[in-house]
């Protein structure tokens, strides 16, 4: 009876874990996998496999949102890479549409770095994070970013500087600690 109860509870916990990962990171994962595979159906398989692996390794998910996402993206990338390698015996089969760059720069270090950067970004103050998002990831100019954020251009410049500095502080602290996690 107790065993049955705890099994039910485990099942509910499984479901909650998968759901929350899907709700929070599903979009990022699917978009990333779609770009890497160039194929929505294949990308969905990759995302499914990624989430299942996360469920099998709950210990990998204890950090802040940033590193969880970094971990998930790293796993997704590894799955894609493995599948491409598996097909390598028949190179003609790796379909690549012109808009789909092949998986490039498969350095473990850069994967670890990107996990660390995500983690570090998550720890920035929202002011700092927003300014980097606008300028770096959305490619906006100082004027555009200033408008979007409602601050003077001079503030955008100085904030982007302090944001980079803060990112670097966290990054250096985290980098060593996280090496090897990506496995």
């Amino acid at each position, binding site marked *: 009876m107790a065993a049955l109860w705890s099994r039910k509870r485990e099942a509910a916990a499984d479901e909650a874990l998968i759901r929350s990962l*899907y709700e929070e990171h599903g979009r990022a994962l699917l978009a990333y996998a779609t770009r890497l595979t160039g194929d929505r159906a294949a990308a969905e398989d990759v995302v499914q496999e990624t989430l299942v692996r996360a469920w099998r390794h709950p210990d990998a998910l204890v950090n802040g949102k940033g590193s969880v*996402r970094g971990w998930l993206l790293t796993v997704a990338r590894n799955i894609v890479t493995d599948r491409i390698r598996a097909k390598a015996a028949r190179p003609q089969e790796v379909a690549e549409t012109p808009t789909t760059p092949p998986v490039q720069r498969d350095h473990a270090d850069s994967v670890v*770095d990107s996990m660390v950067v995500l983690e570090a970004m998550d720890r920035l103050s929202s002011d700092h994070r927003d300014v980097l998002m606008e300028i770096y990831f959305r490619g906006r100019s*100082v004027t555009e970013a200033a408008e979007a954020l409602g601050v*003077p251009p001079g503030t955008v410049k100085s904030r982007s500087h302090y944001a980079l500095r803060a990112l670097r502080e966290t990054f250096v602290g985290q980098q060593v600690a996280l090496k090897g996690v990506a496995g």
Partner: protein
Amino acid sequence: MTTNHGPTNHGPTNHGPTNHGPTNHGPTNHDPQLLGAYVLGVLDEREVRAVEDHLASCARCRAELAELRVMEDAMGDVPAEALLDGPPEGGDLLLQRTLRQVRSERAGQVRRRQVGIGLVAAAVVAVVLGGGFAVGRGTAPDVSAVQTSTPPAPPAGTMLGSATDPETGARMTVQVKPAAGWVRVNASVAGIAQNEKCKLFVVAKDGSRQEAGSWLVSATGEQDGTNLDGSALIAPGDVAAIEVRNFEGEQIVTVPV
């Protein structure tokens, strides 16, 4: 901080007199706050020139710049998709599929766990039976081989040997593991009478020998054998045999390896 929406406001021009000459060692504008925007590539041409002029003469800013560049590089490794939030667009079919797989794997895990318990029970039975078996063998009059526990896969270069001395009836199984210029020896010795004082030797190819240990045979030692660990300074490649002698120097058993 949150005021001033003026989109046409073209930035602060509080840079004082602009510097032109790149070779100018005069006072350029030390404004490290601009380095972030510089690294991110969002300064206008005039500002870029000013920063670069200043960098040429300021080691501190150059060092700062190098650090920020590392960071900018690292950000380049972050895929743009990593910054999307929320669930995928277009229904949760994918979620349902994933949940189904997890449910079925969970069910499989429970089954495996039950099988696991069965295996443990079987192992317990085997140990009990095995113990009985060993005792039975130990008391049997004619034992040609001592059942010692099977060692886990020995390291490369390990030498194994086993022998029974036709005269004394003593039996020994040895394992010789190479170390850096010397050897570790594990020996299981049986068939020697209680109270015999024994020495274990490693014999080299040139006939010389090094003692690797000594012991007194106990009652259980006589019945079930004695297991010994020793070591000797003989190069692994030079080992010819492992040997047991009593304190009078009489040979009890030798195992060539």
